[in-house]
């Protein structure tokens, strides 16, 4: 009898229930492994196919990723979930407290307690923000973000198809933040290994002392937590030069502005600069354009970046 019962596979929320702008789902769920929970889009692994029908260009992607990060940090702060930035985002923090402009994803981690908390009380919640601009000439609009937890998060053994424990998804563009959990290595602890390292399901291992206690800083203008030995982690992952090289991926670090600037307009298909004919798109994707034009608001060398857009969460 049992063998005749259909196999129960957990899937991400069905397209019909969460659809926003695209008319059909750009997912290829059937091509992925049967146990895989999250399904990326058919055109890029950095988008959720339920919410996107095309990749964004360079300027759009930057501004949407920034909003994605800001709303995530703001929400986690409100909930009280312990989260910190890692990998490429940590490198961006080190250089300029901002996402690296060529980075196409954001990496964050949460503690075990936090993922339990999020799964128990916040799974499939939608958080809507007014991405208002602090100047009049940029029209404010709202955007909704979905927090979706992978039910496989409870399985703390290595799981090659479900490395990502949760996602913070922009339902307007399909961009998302991968959330992974830093866990105690129960396998190693069971074996009685004295100095068991903490682990993540994507096979990364970390020393407890390199991550905790978390440092308090800010990222993209919002309070964020940083691993204790941030410099050690960055050198380990990217090498010494990642902390000294001021040229990378067609970008140069401008010491005066304190941020990375494109050397020339990136030309590959994904990175085409926003077309100026599309009035609305351009305005929305260039949040700082108005700020830059305003006199007296110049960023001093090494100083803090321009104030971020005002975020207002809808009640």
């Amino acid at each position: 009898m049992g063998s005749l019962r259909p196999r129960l596979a957990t899937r991400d929320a069905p397209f019909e229930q969460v659809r926003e702008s695209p008319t059909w789902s750009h997912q290829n769920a059937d091509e992925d492994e049967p146990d895989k929970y999250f399904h990326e889009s058919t055109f890029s692994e950095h988008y959720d196919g339920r919410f996107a029908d095309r990749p964004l260009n360079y300027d759009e992607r930057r501004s949407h990723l920034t909003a994605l990060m800001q709303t995530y940090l703001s929400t986690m702060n409100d909930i009280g979930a312990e989260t910190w930035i890692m990998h490429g985002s940590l490198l961006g923090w080190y250089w300029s407290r901002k996402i690296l402009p060529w980075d196409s994803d954001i990496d964050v981690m949460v503690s075990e307690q936090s993922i339990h908390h999020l799964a128990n009380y916040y799974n499939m919640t939608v958080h809507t923000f007014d991405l208002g601009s602090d100047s009049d000439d940029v029209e404010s609009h709202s955007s909704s973000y979905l927090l979706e937890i992978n039910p496989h998060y409870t399985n703390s053994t290595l799981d090659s198809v479900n490395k990502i424990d949760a996602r913070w998804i922009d339902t307007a563009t399909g961009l998302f933040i991968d959330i992974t959990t830093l866990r105690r290595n129960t396998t190693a602890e069971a074996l009685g290994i004295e100095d068991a390292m903490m682990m993540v399901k994507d096979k990364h291992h970390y020393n407890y002392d390199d991550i905790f206690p978390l440092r308090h800083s800010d990222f993209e203008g919002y309070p964020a937590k940083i691993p204790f030995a941030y410099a050690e982690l960055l050198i380990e992952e990217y090498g010494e030069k990642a902390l000294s090289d001021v040229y990378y991926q067609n970008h140069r670090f401008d010491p005066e502005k304190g941020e990375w600037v494109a050397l020339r307009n990136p030309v590959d298909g994904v990175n085409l600069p926003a077309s100026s004919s599309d009035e609305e798109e351009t305005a929305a994707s260039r949040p700082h354009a108005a700020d830059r034009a305003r006199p007296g608001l110049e960023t001093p060398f090494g100083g803090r970046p321009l104030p971020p857009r005002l975020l207002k969460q809808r009640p």
Partner: protein
Amino acid sequence: MEKQEAEDDLRRSRSERHRLHITPAHPPGPLIDRVTNGWRGDVKTAANPPTGDDYEPGICDFEDEGSCPNVSRDLVRSRRFRRMMALVLLLLLVAYYAWQAYLRPRLQQEWNFKEGFLPGRVNGTYGIARAGDFDGTTIRDIHPDLLPGGVADHQGKRRLVFIGDIHGCRKELLHLLHSIDFDPTTDHLIATGDVISKGPNSPGVLDELIKVGAESVRGNHEDRLVEAAKTLLSTDLQAPSAATTSKGYAKDAALLKELKPRHMRYLHDMPLMLRIPALPLAKKRKGKHHIAEDIIVVHAGLVPHVPLDRQDPYFVMNMRSIDHKTHVPSALHETKTGNSKPWFDVWNWYQDRLDRGRSVGGFHVYSYAEWLEKQIQEDGWFGKLRGSVLSKALRKLNPQVAVYGHDSKMGLQVHRWSKGLDSGCVSGGRLTAMVLDARGETEVVQVGCKNYR
């Protein structure tokens, strides 16, 4: 010349006639008559350049006395020449040896030190990035009244006492203070950080330091505790930290429980760097037991040439080595790249260069203003003159002495520009004090420690 050419022509025409008319006919007579020696004429025209009118001997002609082999033979036979040759050979050998064994390594070493200071697209510029934050005072200047030979001490009776990593070894601290006749009214105690953790009595050490009005820079262990206190003691409703599930947390939490608010205030008040101006009564002279320059006290180290306010706090409290190409520090002695040098080696090389007044003009710049200033100065002699009159140097580049701890594996490290005072007290080594008087003389005093690990 004309005569010779005529002769040659004559001879050649004759030989040709012989060849043309006589040879095919085979007339009777001895064979010797048929020898024309025509080749001699050919050789002569070929060997003699048209410009030379006498016969010039070839350099390898053995019949000629001045030819090369003969001259060489004579030279080789002469003793004087042989002596000279031997001398030349010897000199060449010495030069080669000097190059290989001394000059080349020296130049290579000099380049290895210099490379990291030069801007270029290959190694990048460490110190440009925003880097980490420091929650507290980054740079503190010592109170002028505490300076030996300063405004409050015209007689030069005051002393500064620097002590390496104490790590909660209160007994050893008291013993050391006693052995240098420490008097809080005339002496000022400065610890190089890591006064707590690992050892038996961290609160006791903090109390002693507070009692004698000592200052300390923040070490990596204080940094850990200050950061941990924010999460563990914070009043806002945060989800329980993942830290609660781990062992490392237990150590922090246990120590935090022992510490009273006055201790936490003291820890939080510790600056990242402590700056001491050059002692007014100290005369400038060389020697590693004499300090007449500015002093910077840090826990672990500094990257030379990077301005103090651009140093990454994490590395200031944790570095042990520097990558000599990129100048990115590391908490390890040896990194995977194989380019590691002890940070103080690079520091000492740089301070020595400043001390000798050698140019650092081609070295990294860290701000747009600094770069602009450099452009003005490099714009010809007029620009240089104008630059020296109009713009003051943004950064005064005087050599500085770094006093630090952190590296117990290296032990006591006293050099002219760096003084490493951690001699591993908590693990049974020694507790080190460096006493500096108003004339700039230093004295190193050590006491033995029990092994608490």
